[in-house]
């Protein structure tokens, strides 16, 4: 009964893959004549500024998420007695769309007079992406065999040394997965900068504006193709290192 998979395959081919092919066509000038001119946006100073800005936001978000998430994941995996409850609290935010969570954060930031700043964007990004960092870190820390830690102690290593020489290296796959899961989507994030950032422009807000405000689908498509290339390149690097993709 292999044919049972045909409706789903056909659905995705028509409503996911084919549209994506059309984006590539548009980035080369379709339905007008072929051109690579749309990709010249990468040499445009405004675009470069927006791209560097996004890169900075994504990098800061990733670093702050990692610093906040590691102790949390470590605690849940190795120290906590209420593992299930805490794990549930990490997973619950995955069920709520960024739009709603960002609005919830707005109700706190707004009375504090912290809206429409670069800092507000960073707070919002960390707020939304933190669970994406905690979960893979938890997954790798949880797999650590406690006897390895005990061996380290038995041979006289201090807790700090045990952490640096045993725990941290063993959790590396989780760190890499978490960094990719946070960095890649936050590079193209739209909702947070649009709601909290005021005039802060990112790859996400630029994409939105090119499509829905200026109707410049051609350059918008080129921008998306570049972004997708970055996404796939990061995943490729990850899969090459880790052997396979685990979510």
């Amino acid at each position, binding site marked *: 009964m292999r044919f049972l998979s045909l409706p789903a395959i056909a659905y995705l081919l028509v409503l996911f893959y084919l549209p994506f092919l059309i984006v590539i066509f548009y980035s080369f000038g379709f339905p007008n004549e072929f051109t690579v001119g749309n990709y010249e946006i990468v040499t445009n100073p405004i675009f470069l500024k927006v791209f560097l800005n996004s890169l900075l936001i994504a990098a800061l978000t990733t670093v702050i998420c990692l610093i906040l998430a590691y102790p949390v994941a470590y605690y849940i995996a190795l120290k906590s007695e209420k593992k299930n409850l805490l794990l549930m609290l990490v997973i619950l935010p995955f069920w709520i769309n960024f739009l709603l969570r960002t609005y919830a954060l707005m109700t706190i930031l707004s009375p504090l007079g912290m809206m429409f700043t670069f800092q507000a964007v960073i707070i919002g990004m960390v707020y939304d992406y933190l669970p994406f960092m905690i979960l893979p870190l938890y997954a790798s820390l949880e797999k650590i065999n406690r006897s390895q830690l005990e061996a380290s102690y038995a041979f006289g290593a201090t807790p700090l040394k045990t952490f640096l020489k045993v725990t941290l290296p063993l959790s590396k796959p989780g760190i890499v997965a978490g960094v990719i899961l946070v960095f890649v989507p936050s590079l193209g994030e739209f909702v947070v900068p649009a709601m909290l950032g005021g005039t802060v422009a990112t790859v996400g807000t630029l*994409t939105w504006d090119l499509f*829905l405000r200026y109707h410049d689908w051609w350059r918008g498509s080129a921008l998306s193709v570049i972004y997708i290339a970055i996404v796939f390149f990061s995943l490729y690097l990850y899969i090459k290192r880790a052997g396979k993709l685990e979510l």
Partner: protein
Amino acid sequence: MIKFFVASVFIFLYLPIFYVIVASFFDVKGFTLKWYEQLFQSKAIIVAFYNSLTLALISTAISVILGTLAAYSFVRYKMRSESLFYTPIIIPEITEALSLLLFYNLLSFPMGFYSVLLGHTAFNVAFVYVIVRARLEGFQRSLEDASLTLGANEVQTFLKVTLPLSMPGIVAAALIAFTLSWDNFIKTAFTTGPGFQTLPLIIWAQAARGVVSPSLNALTSLVLLVSLLMAYLYVRLSRKT
């Protein structure tokens, strides 16, 4: 020390959500339901509520059927090219959304309920596939073999053995698909047409200007509580099995 740090991070994660829900039940005089009463006096919001609910229900129904059948045949026949179903999960939503916009425009497909529905269903099919597939791999193939050996045909085996055993996975997938469609924003924004509104689009239209208001708190809480209800059902379901 670490306990304090972990507690602070969880407060950071949950304070805004609690705050928006609590604030939606208060005005200067104290507890009130008036913000919710106001919501349901607005015809635009009632229509959007109906739209969001219909979209989520129909998209869930279609994606559960397509995704489950696909998961079944891929697992049982060890078919390749599974990445077909993983790409839609990995691709950033905004890219998927704009590609649909171009696709519909090229076909002159009318933008509105159906264009949004078809878009939501695309990522839901992928999610259902991944979740049901994990469940199907989790139980013993021998149960199906036993059924076949005892004379049931493939269709009977599927309906009487495979389907009931994979039901927890299917229900979990349905809950996730419903929620993804119910509070979806970016894909809806790119694929909707004039006059077709959903609750997240109404929230966006006001919140994008940075305005925080009690009625918006109520509307956001309403959408949020439905999503949390789905999450709660999901957790209960996974505890049982």
